[in-house]
């Protein structure tokens, strides 16, 4: 589909995109910080952001890789605890500013989650569908139990187990959450719209054919899974910095399922779907406080109904393209180097 409108040079387009993004980031942060938004609403927004990252990360593993990992809460826990323990330790030192060092904590959380994800991937990714689901479930539970009981083994207080890890510096704010959500979305998007993304989708579509084309399926499955674990860990770190106190119980099978529900509802394979779904599913319980006891029932029913009637989720695997949108808005051609999937809803 060729548009005859003038094409902006690449570097200029990048500049415009970056400037727009920074402007959006700063203006929204200023808005939030100005007091126009109540602290309560700010908290909900931050939580939305964290859930968006969780959903985007799991969407990578389910929608794009075609797997069903059921232990992602374990990665969240690893990210949360790594970052929390690090932040508590480092802020005990004189002259260290918690908010300045927080990015390092987040990165640490992501890296540790990614590393464990990589290790888990070695046995897990050799298995198919159902078996992969249960082995990741197993690992998720083991992580939870280890975090719960490791202090007994170590002989000193490390995770504080069920007693909760308290006094974590509450360094998560709108700015760094927004930044992380954007980075997560950006990185996943750029990877998927490249030859690596094609390889990943090829594996999901027909693994044997992908192998016959010379694609290293082991590499890409591991790559995708590790990346997914990384972002989940990042979300965990943000979560720890948001709540200020964490315990292993929050990161059990239930949590993994909550994230899964978010992704499934939004559409496995649609980043926009994950974002919308995360927002709705975070905000709705807050709005419907009165009905909170029905929340999980509603979730389960929703999950079942969606699976029976619209298994592809709300957005199918429609993937939003920022450049196409900007192109349409500005009347110029969007990125045309890679064939775009324009708004089709796949059933």
């Amino acid at each position, binding site marked *: 589909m060729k548009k005859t409108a003038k094409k902006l040079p690449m570097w200029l387009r990048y500049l415009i995109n970056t400037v727009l993004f920074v402007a959006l980031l700063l203006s929204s942060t200023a808005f939030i910080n100005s007091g126009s938004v109540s602290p309560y609403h700010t908290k909900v927004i931050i939580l939305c952001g964290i859930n968006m990252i969780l959903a985007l990360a799991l969407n990578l593993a389910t929608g794009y890789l075609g797997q069903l990992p059921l232990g992602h809460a374990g990665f969240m826990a690893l990210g949360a605890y790594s970052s929390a323990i690090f932040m508590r330790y480092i802020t005990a030192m004189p002259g260290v500013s918690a908010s300045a060092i927080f990015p390092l904590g987040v990165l640490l959380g992501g890296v540790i989650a990614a590393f464990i994800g990589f290790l888990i991937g070695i046995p897990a990714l050799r298995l198919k569908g159902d078996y992969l689901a249960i082995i990741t479930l197993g690992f998720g539970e083991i992580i939870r139990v280890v975090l719960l009981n490791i202090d007994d083994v170590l002989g000193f207080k490390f995770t504080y187990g069920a007693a909760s890890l308290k006094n974590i510096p509450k360094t998560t704010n709108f700015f760094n959450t927004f930044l992380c959500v954007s980075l997560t979305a950006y990185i996943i998007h750029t990877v998927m719209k490249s*030859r690596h993304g094609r390889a990943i989708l090829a594996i999901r579509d027909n693994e044997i054919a992908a192998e016959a*084309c010379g694609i*290293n399926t082991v590499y890409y499955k591991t790559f995708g899974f590790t990346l997914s674990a990384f972002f989940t860990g990042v979300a965990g770190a943000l979560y720890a910095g948001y709540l200020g106190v964490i315990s292993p119980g929050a990161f059990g099978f239930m949590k993994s399922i909550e994230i899964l529900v978010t992704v499934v509802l939004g559409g496995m394979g649609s980043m926009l779907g994950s974002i919308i779904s995360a927002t709705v599913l975070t905000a709705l319980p807050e709005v419907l406080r009165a009905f909170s006891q029905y929340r999980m029932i509603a979730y389960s029913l929703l999950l079942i109904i969606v699976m029976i009637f619209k298994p592809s989720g709300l957005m199918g695997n429609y993937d939003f393209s920022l450049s196409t949108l900007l192109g349409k808005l500005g009347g110029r051609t969007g990125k045309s180097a890679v064939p775009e999937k324009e708004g089709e809803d796949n059933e």
Partner: protein
Amino acid sequence: MSKLVPVPSRGMVPERDVESPPVLETIHLGVDFGGLVAVDKFNIVIGKTEISGLIGPNGAGKTTVFNLLTNVYKPTRGTVILGDKDISGMSTRQVCRAGMARTFQNIRLFKDMTVAENVMVGLHHDIKYHTPGAVFRLPSFWRGEKYAKNKALEMLSIFNMQDMGDLKAGGLPYGAQRRLEIVRALATKPMILLLDEPAAGMNPSETAELMENIVKIRDTYQIAILLIEHDMKLVMGICEGIAVLNYGRIIAKGTPAEIASNPLVIEAYLGKKEA
């Protein structure tokens, strides 16, 4: 049709290929499934630019042979030599990278991708940029993608499919899907192309066109082609060397003329009148 001449090792290749080593050679290749000997003593030699055929009644084990060559099934015994490398024991992926590509009897396209994207997956290793290039959208990324798209369309033009680039692969008519699979396999830059029943489901005019295109592919890319087929017109029309398989064993090998007059072959095939 070219003359077949013997090569020093064993087997026969087209005269024009006698200077180069055979592209594919199997030595006593075989596989057992449980107690069943599915394929046994499979010995063939294929010349560098030979169009070779593998025929036999249904259930003879032809696709099994393909699966053995590409290591989808692990051979129980025997060796496979591709070019100058012993590829026995290599994974399917490594076999592809070594230079042997294939299509599938039941068509294994990436149904949710476009036609061009399917070919671009085949071009995966031909595209030269890495993950940082993709994430930061460096010039190497844009160059790579442009190259990939153009090359894909160029290859699709063999079958005159270059205008179908943005169509969804799963929505193509059957014949077009088969042709797309061939292009995708070709994109991996093989030394030999294995085609599993490429003419299945095609009408006579499509088949005639396919015959021309296969020869064209061989001439353009100077590769060998091994095909499994039931359509005798196609096999007799373009194959230079044919091996006949029955119950997992080769019962005859030779030129089309030799095969057509071989009593063993006629007996195995009694009733086959595809023409």
